[in-house]
């Protein structure tokens, strides 16, 4: 019997090595795998390269990992936010490396890694600082730059529900980078509210097929839901 379910967060993040590259899902805190990152913080891996849209919000999740000094480099589109004080401090102190990738190129590079594309020509960033040092080409009268896949050793993804084959569904804009990151890592680790019985997820509506998922851990229902129904929250985080 296939079962990708693991019982504890500790087991979910076991084996992540010092120096690993880790894709971290989420756009802001929506879809951000906070429980997995907390577990990674406990686990102790350091010298990490993190690929994520942002570089941490507030003091939780990725921000906490950065604060603990575990991250050597961040590859992201948008580190500077109203609540990115942890990253800002490290960056200004010269204690962390930063590679900025426009958000669409970031998403497409991750998709390319998951789908075996060797490189692709994108119009995004042409004529900007982002294009410096990159190969450019004019195709059918339009200018493009060449971008390469961005895969990783691990992906940490937050979804809504899973089954034991690792099929996943997400919730609203929490989907964001989850599906493409799940496909782009050697080992994909997913936190979900609940692992449901095989056959519960409608095959037509599975967003991430289990082929892309290695480990699933259930962490209990998110605070703004009750038995799967939305009950609301007072704040966004």
């Amino acid at each position, binding site marked *: 019997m296939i079962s990708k379910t693991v019982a504890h967060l500790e087991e979910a993040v076991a084996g992540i090595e010092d120096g690993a590259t880790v894709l971290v899902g989420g*756009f802001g805190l929506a879809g951000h795998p906070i429980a997995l990152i907390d577990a990674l913080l406990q686990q102790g891996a350091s010298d990490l390269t993190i690929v994520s849209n942002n570089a941490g919000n507030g003091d939780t999740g990725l921000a906490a990992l950065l604060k603990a000094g575990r991250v050597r480099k961040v590859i992201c589109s948008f580190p500077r936010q109203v609540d990115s004080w942890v990253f800002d401090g490290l960056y*200004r102190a010269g204690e962390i490396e930063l590679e*900025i990738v426009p958000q669409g190129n970031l998403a497409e590079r991750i998709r390319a890694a998951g789908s075996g594309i060797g490189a692709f020509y994108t119009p995004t960033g042409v004529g*900007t*600082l*982002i294009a410096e040092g990159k190969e450019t080409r004019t195709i059918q009268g339009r200018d493009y730059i060449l971008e390469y896949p961005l895969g990783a050793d691990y992906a940490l993804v937050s979804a809504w529900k899973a089954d034991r084959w690792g099929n996943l569904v997400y919730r609203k*804009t929490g989907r964001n*980078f989850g599906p493409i990151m799940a496909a782009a890592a050697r080992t994909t680790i997913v936190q979900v509210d609940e692992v449901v019985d095989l056959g519960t997820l409608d095959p037509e509506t599975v967003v991430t097929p289990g082929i892309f998922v290695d480990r699933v851990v259930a962490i209990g229902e*998110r605070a703004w839901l009750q038995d799967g129904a939305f009950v609301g929250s007072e704040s966004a985080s």
Partner: protein
Amino acid sequence: MTGALDRRALAARIAHDITEGSIVNLGIGAPTLIADQLPAGLEIILHTENGMLGMGPAPEPGRIDPDLINAGKQPVTELVGASYFHHADSFGMMRGGHLDICVLGAFQVSEHGDLANWHTGAPDAIPAVGGAMDLAIGAKNVWVMTDLLTRDGQSKLVAECTYPLTGTRCVSRVYTDRAVFDIVPGGFAVTEMFGSTTLDELRSLTGLELA
């Protein structure tokens, strides 16, 4: 600044130019004000690049859904007819030219339609581009919403951008507090002036030949 539009009035002016059925991305910051000014009763579909079409207004108090945010990471709602998709698909929509309009803020816009809105170029600034470069090259119509002048009186409309670019030859129209400018082969063309603004005044403020 006699007759200059305030931000809400400018947002309403832009909203007036968005026709029914348009698919529109309102970026982050000031352009998001446009959402509340869209004509009631017209169906205009808002795209947010973090994976949604059919975005609705901010939720009622206590009804915030942390899984449902816009590109500015503010809580939003879902309209009837909405759909969700992942980031590669969302940016494919932009890059593939499927959005009708996006409205962005700007540090500078050149008379060729070059846009600078992501980086001041200051050595201690932390760069952060987000989806701006993708929006700039992606939408069928890229409009800018901005004050004509910076806080210290410099024109944001320029012959050539001095800040790092977001995209080249991508802006087609600039809505400012003083006037609306179309970008045409010769440079900026004034299509509308607000309040007592005159063309001479705009030429003086921008230092540009304006048609």
